[in-house]
């Protein structure tokens, strides 16, 4: 696992992760099977860009006060099988991939928090983990509402 010595290291790493997410959703958008899906992925990429901008701002200003709140985990993605990303995948499949991605990021930050050498770094990692779990919750709620519609 990567070693982090200071806050800037961590933020660079997190900013890099957000950029990866932007790229990921833009790829999904470019391979989308309909205009509606393309728009949806571009919207998610837009949200990731905002997340990234927020981290960049934190880094530049040097103020870090992201609250560590409790975020619900519906664990929907935990039990689902995700297909490898492919052109023309359905929105349901894409949501599963997205939930799993955000959960992995959450786990990564939580693990880093666990191993953090001091309390300051620990709280930063924890706050980042919370951010990721918020992103996941957004996908989970959408999945809960629209995919598991049980008509």
């Amino acid at each position, binding site marked *: 696992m990567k070693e982090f010595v200071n806050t800037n290291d961590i933020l660079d790493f997190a900013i890099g992760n957000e950029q990866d997410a932007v790229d990921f959703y833009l790829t999904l958008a470019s391979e989308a099977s309909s205009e509606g899906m393309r728009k949806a992925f571009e919207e998610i990429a837009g949200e990731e860009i905002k997340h990234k901008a927020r981290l960049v701002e934190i880094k530049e200003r040097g103020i870090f006060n992201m609250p560590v709140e409790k975020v*619900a985990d519906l664990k929907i993605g935990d039990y689902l099988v995700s297909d490898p990303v492919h052109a023309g995948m359905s929105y349901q499949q894409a949501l599963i991939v997205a939930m799993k991605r955000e959960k992995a990021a959450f786990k990564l930050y939580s693990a880093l928090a666990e191993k953090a050498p001091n309390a300051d770094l620990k709280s930063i990692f924890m706050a980042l983990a919370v951010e990721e779990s918020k992103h996941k919750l957004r996908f989970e709620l959408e999945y809960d509402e*629209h*995919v598991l519609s049980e008509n």
Partner: protein
Amino acid sequence: MALLDQDVKYLKFKTYLPCYCPHCKKTFNVEKRDVKYLNFTGVYEGADVDVKISPYLNVFEQESSIPLKEGDLFEDLKCPSCNKSLVNPDIVCGDCGSPVGEVILSAYSRLIPFFSCLKVGCEWHGLTRADERHIKIKIPRQEMPEQDQKLRIQTYQEVPYGYTTELASLEAGRCLQCKNPKCVEGCPVNVDIPGFIKCIREDDFDGAAKVVKEKNVLPAICGRVCPQENQCEEKCILGIKTKPVAIGNLERFVADWERKMDLVKIPIIKTKLNKRIAVVGSGPSGLTVAADMLQYGYSVTMYEAFHEAGGVLVYGIPEFRLPKSIVNFEINYLRELGLRFEMNHVIGKILTIDELLEHFDAVFIGVGAGLPKFMNIPGEALGNVFSANEYLTRMNLMKAYLFPEYDTPKPRGTKVAVIGGGNVAMDCARTAIRTGASDVTIVYRRSRQELPARHEEVRHAEEEGIKFRLLTNPVQYLGTDGNMVKGIECIKMKLGEPDASGRRSPVPIEGSNIVLPVDLVVVAIGNGSNPIIFQTTPNLNRNKWGNIEVNQQTNETSIPYVYAGGDIVTGSATVIEAMGAGRIAANAMHKKLSAKTKKTTNSN
């Protein structure tokens, strides 16, 4: 509580009435300098309204904090001190049938119950007359007789028998004939509900059917499958204090009566327009478009992928809930009106939308939401794990229920689990029990309150012995060596903290896994849109879920002269909503095509 004439015979015109609340015994009388009135809280359109009434017998002065017109009906009348309802649920006004409020009047050292009609302007308003002619004992809601619970699971015959004429008349007698009927607002196609109920009261059943059909072309179907409890009946004024009028049962009664008495007449279409319409899909949305366009004088051709017309009405909803003979009757009616059917035509494969546009002036797409959703958990590919679509289609369309007359292999299981809690899940479970399964369980991840199925369906399922495993969610299917399903591993769920909208989503309880032994699973968690049409029509705009995007006012798609409606636009919804969408499209199509004709005629 009967009113006795001797209690009141001494009361004279303009007697001052001291009035009390029957619950808290506080008085309604307010006396300020020379002004005297009785002070009540009325409920009108859900809001509390101050109501002041003259305290003198036979003086009709009434004033309220909002303007009310004659015929308006208070939804409730409450005591301003204890806020309890004064409405007596056991009686109604004998003049107009509206609910009545009860107060206690003190006169000559006696306490006398007095009743007052909640309808503004009713002759009996304002605590005036108190004789028995003016109240009547309320009729309870009439339920439909049904097949015996034990016997019915051995047949596919329809469960409720429908009203007799006597029951229908009794039930129709409960309607208050509101001047401002809320029920009509609750109906997606705005059927004149008090209008048709009035005809039933007058024993004019034929007239009643005509009133319904002005707005609803498939009343025998809607009377059976519409979720009235969330639509017209939810809004019915009677429902505030007691059970609403059984509008759905009455609708079913008049439609059945008309059919059984052979009174359905094929109208003669006077205008014949030299224009052609193609309708893709023969579900309720397509059938409505076809009916409306035929009546306008267009020639209409319907393309259907299956060999039988009717959409979900024939291959989804089972025989015991909606007899196929009724759907066929409606379809034959349209055939006699001039509708041409092209069966076994998958549009998008055999013909594209663009090709249809070369031969037709306009196209309507009503292909429904026919692509089953799966949960994407391990084991879904095992044998005997079916989607609800496949299961019901085999049982209905392939007439597996008529085995051995029809020799379709019937999906069979002795221990069956159905995943989901909607109407589709109940239909699958109730079908499974009729195929002879000894143990049928609904597995649903939320609690009973959230079950999206109609109450009637849940009740019928329970009566038929179907078990419910609530707050339980499958995590994987387990298979035999031969790759047939033999069990479902489930996890128990609990409702999590409410989110911003107050909704509580279910979350799994770690380590609570259990295994249910089963030999057949039906997954009924919803349907999405089928992509076939879009593969050859990429310029048809869709949203991220694959549903067609339309102009809400006209239901026209991104391609001019191509309209769409029903489940393919909204996602899985209801029969009546699909019909409503069809009607919007038909009106808009007719308007646009008529305008076009005018333009060409003028320029010639």
